[in-house]
Structures are given as C-alpha cells and as structure tokens.
C-alpha cells in the first residue's frame, strides 16, 4: 500500500493548479458563461500545448500514454476553479469512445487532431425521454446503399455548438444502438444551446436527412451502447473527480470566509452550528475524495470497477450538492449574488449531477451489479 501520489503526479497537479488559477480566475469563468461559445479558445490551445488533451492516449496517435490517475488529477484541478472547456466531451466522451471502438483509420484521423487542440467533439446520445438507458436511444439510422441517413433530435449534447465532429447514437433497422461519426457542419444539422443552470454548452442537435458513409460507424453495428457504457464508467469517475475538486474549493473558501466574517463580535466560524456544518462538509469531502482515489486506482489496475464507478458518481453528486449548498448558506446573503464565487459552485453542482448519469440512475445500477455479480 502506498497512498501517496508520485512526484510526477504532484508536479502535474501543481502545474494544473497554477494554470487554472492564473489563466481562469472566477471572473473569467463568469465572463465565459456569458459567451455564446462557452469556452476560451486561447486556453484550449494552451492546454493542448501542455499536452493535457493527449495525456491518456497512446503515443502512436501523438499522446503521452499517461495513467488514468493523471487524467483524474487534471479533472480534480479543473473542478477547483470550475474551468469551463470541452475537455470532458472531447477527450473523454468522444476521444475514449474512438480509442475504445474506432477503426485504426478513425483513430489516426481524429485522435491527433483532438490531442493538438484542433478538434472539438460532442457525444449525442440522450433523447426526448432523458433516459440514460439503451432504451432511451430511439433515433433511426436508415440504410441507403452504403450510407446511413439519420433523422431526429438529440438533447443535452455537451459542446455540440463548438464541435467539429459529433458522435451520434442511432439504431439501424433491426439493430441496437450504433455510433456514427457525423460532421457537425452538415447542412442537415441544426444546433441550439439549451439554457441550463450551469450556463454551459448543453445543446439540442436536430438531424434532418443527414447522410453518412458506412465507414463512419464506430465499433460494431448494434454494439454502440456497450462502448458508451464502458466509456461512461470512466467518465463517471472523472466527473466525480471534477466534483471532488470543486467540493474542496468550496470548503476552503467557506472556511476562510467563516474565519474572517464577524457577527455579534466574533468570527462566524466560532459558532458551534457553523463548526458542525463545516465538519459535516469536510467529512463528506474526505470520504468522497478517498473513494475517488481508490476507484481511479482500480481503473489503472484493470480491475472491474463498474459498480464502484456508479457508487462513486452517486456519492460525488450528493456530496457536491450538499457541500455547495451549505457553503452558500454559511456565506449568507453575499453567497447568493451573481458576483459571489461560491454561487458558481452551487449552480454547477446541479448541472454536473446529470452528466454521465444522475444519482438515481447510478443507485439502480449499483444494485443491478451487486445482485448480478455479487460484492467485489
């Protein structure tokens, strides 16, 4: 057992921490929230120069073959400043999908562009019902010679509005969900931002007679959902990392505020009720963060981590909501204003909850797995 990070990992964390804090302080986060593109192209490029988009990918495609734990560290640090970027959609939701299921040609074409920061991608999988299950994917892919024609509406597609390529889950006649690579600029595609509490790039994507060649399929026909699930299990861990990082920031900011803000002649952090609120916050953070590290380790070890990924995402969802809510409450009035950094966290907690599966979905998954496979 060795629960220290390696010195390389500490350096990576340190670099990421300094980068996000310097390049994207909370004022900038708020500014980016107000823009149509919802991210900072200059910082996206700088991150690519630092090699972070390529961290997890094989050297063969221009990546660095770093461990999952390294990627986790980036996400934790992004969480601390709520850095807005298409990192999750592009690198995780799409990049890992291509790595997992793509042909060699697809990998060679797309991964280097992702790694260089030249290509943003978005995964279009949810539909009108908002179900995270395979049954929720109903869009049909009509066979048309060697090609497929897609029609229908995808919802809650992160970063579609700034993407160059989409991965769209649809069903060829008689088949299960299948993944299609689609050019975002296809004239049959209309992309509209959906306004969310997270003020992020959540989009509606309407496809009308969008025709794609047969070789745009990623993985086997009808095998798309298995790929989605495999990638989303890792995605859930990384979203948890982002929430864990954000939770830590909430606690630090709130503890600092509670020591400084005085009412009735003492710092409010001296009141027992505030102390107990903060003790509860710290407990929830500490258990969630150490669980995160353990599950990330399981991923790197190649262990079966699916049950744990679901439990972890549920744990982080609830911890971040709890912690950010208490944080605003302790900040009092000032915490509710648009100017307050802490309010950013409270809003993001609600939107992160839905990415890669909400709490209820994951609780039911945990039980499906425990009953089917037993306790690991």
């Amino acid at each position: 057992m060795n629960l220290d990070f390696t010195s390389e990992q500490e350096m990576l964390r340190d670099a990421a921490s300094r980068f996000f804090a310097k390049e994207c302080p909370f004022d900038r986060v708020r500014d980016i929230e107000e823009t149509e593109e919802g991210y900072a192209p200059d910082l996206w490029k700088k991150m690519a120069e630092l090699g972070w988009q390529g961290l997890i990918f094989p050297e063969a495609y221009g990546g660095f073959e770093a461990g999952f734990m390294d990627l986790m560290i980036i996400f934790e640090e992004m969480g601390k400043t709520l850095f807005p970027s298409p990192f999750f959609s592009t690198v995780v939701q799409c990049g890992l999908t291509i790595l997992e299921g793509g042909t060699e040609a697809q990998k060679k074409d797309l991964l280097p562009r992702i790694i260089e920061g030249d290509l943003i991608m978005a995964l279009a999988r949810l539909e009108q019902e908002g179900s995270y299950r395979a049954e929720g994917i109903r869009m049909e892919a009509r066979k048309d010679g060697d090609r497929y024609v897609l029609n229908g509406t995808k919802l809650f597609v992160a970063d579609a509005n700034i993407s160059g390529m989409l991965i769209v889950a649809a069903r060829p006649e008689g088949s299960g969900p299948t993944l299609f690579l689609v050019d975002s600029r296809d004239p049959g595609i209309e992309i509209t931002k959906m306004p969310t509490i997270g003020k992020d790039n959540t989009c509606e994507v309407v496809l009308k007679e969008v025709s794609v060649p047969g070789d745009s399929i990623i993985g086997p026909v009808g095998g798309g959902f298995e790929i989605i699930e495999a990638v989303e299990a890792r995605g859930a861990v990384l979203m948890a990392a982002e929430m864990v990082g954000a939770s830590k920031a909430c606690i630090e900011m709130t503890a600092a505020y509670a020591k400084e803000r005085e009412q009735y002649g003492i710092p409010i952090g001296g009141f027992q009720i505030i102390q107990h609120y903060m003790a509860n916050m710290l407990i929830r953070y500490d258990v969630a963060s150490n669980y995160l590290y353990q599950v990330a380790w399981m991923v790197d070890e190649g262990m079966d981590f699916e049950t744990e990924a679901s439990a972890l995402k549920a744990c982080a969802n609830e911890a971040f909501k709890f912690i950010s809510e208490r944080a605003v409450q302790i900040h009092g009035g000032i915490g509710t204003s648009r100017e307050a950094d802490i309010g950013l966290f409270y809003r993001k907690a609600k939107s992160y909850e839905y990415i890669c599966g909400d709490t209820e979905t994951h609780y039911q998954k945990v039980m499906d797995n425990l009953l089917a496979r037993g306790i690991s």
Partner: protein
Amino acid sequence: MDFSLTEEQRAFKSELEDFFREEMKNAPPCYQNTTLIEAMYHTDEGFAFHRYMQKRLAEKGWLTMAWPEKYGGRGASIAEQVIFNEVHSYYRAPGIDRFGVAMFAPTVMLFASEEQKARILPPIARGEVQYCQGWSEPNAGSDLASLSTTAVRDGDYYVVNGQKTWTTAGHRADHMFLLARTDPSKKRNAGLSVFNVDMGLPGIEVRPIRYMNGGHFYNEVFFTDVKIHKDELVGPEGDGWKLTRATMNFERSGAGAYAALLRSFEELLEYVKGTSRDGKPLAQDPVVRRKLAMIYTDLRAGWAHSYMIAWLQEQGKTAFTPAAASESKVFATELRQRMVNFATEIMGPYGQLEDSPWAPLGGSMVEGYQTVIGSTIYAGTNEIQRNIIAWAGLRLPRIK
C-alpha cells in the same frame, strides 16, 4: 376544534379566487416561471404589472385591509388576512409592496407626527408608491445593530453617509425607510433613527446586485452627503431601534407559503402524470412516488401548523407566536428546498433547464433551486430562527 370557514369567509375566498384567476390571465410569463420577488422587480414589464395590481388591490380595499379603520383600512381579522394571503400566494400575484404597506406604515401610524401620517400614508394606501427598506449593511446582516451609516444633524437637515445592501426593489422604489446612526457616540442599538427618504435625492446611488441566476431585485444603495430634511425623521431621534420593532396585527402564520407550495406541487403532480421515462409514466416509479408523498405530507402538516399560529394570533396569544413563526419560516423554506431538490431530480437531465421551450414547468423548479437558498438566509437566517425557537419556544438558556 373546528378548521372550517364561515359562510362569509368562504364567499370572500371565492371572490378572491375569481379575481386573481381572471387578473393573472394578463400576467407576463415571468409570474409563472420565476419567483414572485423576481417577477415583480426584474423586468419593466413585470414591475408594470405589479403597479397595475397594486392599484387594483387598492380599489378593492384589499391592499390595506389589515390597517385600522382610522387610517382607511378595515381592520381585517387574522382569518381574513390568512384567506387573502393564501389565495394571493396560490395565484402568484403581485400588487403588495410589503415594505410600504406592512413594514413602514405601522411604524408611521405608531410613531409619526400627524403631518407625516397625512403625507405618507395615503399614497401607500392608494397603491401609488413603492418603498424599500434601508436596514442591512455589508457588516450588519444577522447582527443588524452593528450598522454604521450615519445621519448627522446640520441645521434643518440630516446629512447621510454610508451604504445599505440587499435592498430589495431599491431600483424600483420611490422611497426608502432608512435606519441610520444619528448619535455616533452610542453603540449597538442606541443612537439609531428612522427616516423617510425620497430615493430621488442627490447623492443617492443605487447599484444592482444580481442574484446568482442573474435576476435583479437586490441592490446596494450608497449615500454620499445626502441631505434629508428634518421633517423626514420619524419618531424621536435616537429611538430608531424601538421603531424597527413596530408591528401591527398582521398575520404571520406562513399559510401563504404553503398555498404557494401547493400550487407548485400540483404542477409537479401533473408533470409526473404526463411524463414517461423508460416506457413508464414517472407517476408509477416508486422512488418518484415516495419523494412526492414526502412533500405532500410535510406540506399538509406544515399548513395545519400555520393555521394554529393564525388562530393563536387571533386570540391574542402572542407569547406563543415568536417561536412558532420562526418554526413556520424554517419548515416552509426548507420544505420548498426539499421540493425543488426532489423535483429537479425527478426530471432527470431536464432538471437543469432554465426557462426555454425544453424546460418542464417553465424552468420554475430549477429557478426555485437557486432562489430558495435566499429564503433560508434572508429575513433572519434559519440558524438565527433555530436559536429563537430554542430560546423562546423551549426556554433553553442563552449563554453569552
């Protein structure tokens, strides 16, 4: 024990229901999608409708129905006020400037000169003015007595310098009732005075505070050498703290909050009946059902409690009500918090959507997720309320 309304009360309720149902058909959409405070003060359109309703309520005699007859009210009973507040809240109707009608007017009636009464009260009663409250300061929140805005006498005027904050409707208000320190040598709650301030005076600057969802109803108000005529001093100089304690027999049961919650709950129930996921209506999902049943249970229980507060208040048994009103505030605000949490969870990814064609219930639940945390903070944080409950309701010792 009898919870029923008299025939007269039922008729009054039904008149109110007809009135608000009709009037609210003309309300701008913000009254459906956003919290009342934001609907009233954020947009010009919303504010205009509030002003319109103010006049309509004044015409009907409902604006000041709780005022004594002497001042043009009709001294309505607590029960009547509860009925009015329930229907008014259920329909999410504006038209009440509570700063003028319910907070400043009682102070004026009790402490102001006859000249001031004649000048200040009629415009409020006619629904022609909007007031705001000048109490909180950056360093005086829960601990109001630590405020530091000064009003220094200079001839016929007081010269005011300082800053107020969390001033609801400050950008819409014609007047502010200001609490300022007229005797800087005194500490805490001594040496404070109350002024009726024209918001148009030179030296007053109102800056918006945006709420986390972007809504504009709070403001900072800066005073730089603002000259306020001595005739605007209400009550004796230095007695301001006493004046902040002035209240009339307004109902403080919280019943209106439950009526508003019922409206939201009804909408949520319709939503789960009409929405399917994974081939099944949400209304058949046991986890969803459990969440709704928990809300319904607390809603009914809290509401019953609010009636008891109203009843005791009507009986003049006010010794009970300080703790009970705090209980009602805590329970109702935290119940709304549970409701918006459950609602946004039940909606799945739709739970994050703000007002837009995709948003269930006009995005009102996710709006509620943001505004509800204000309600557990303002008007006495729920922490302070729990202290009061322990001290006043259970006589637990207050250790300094």
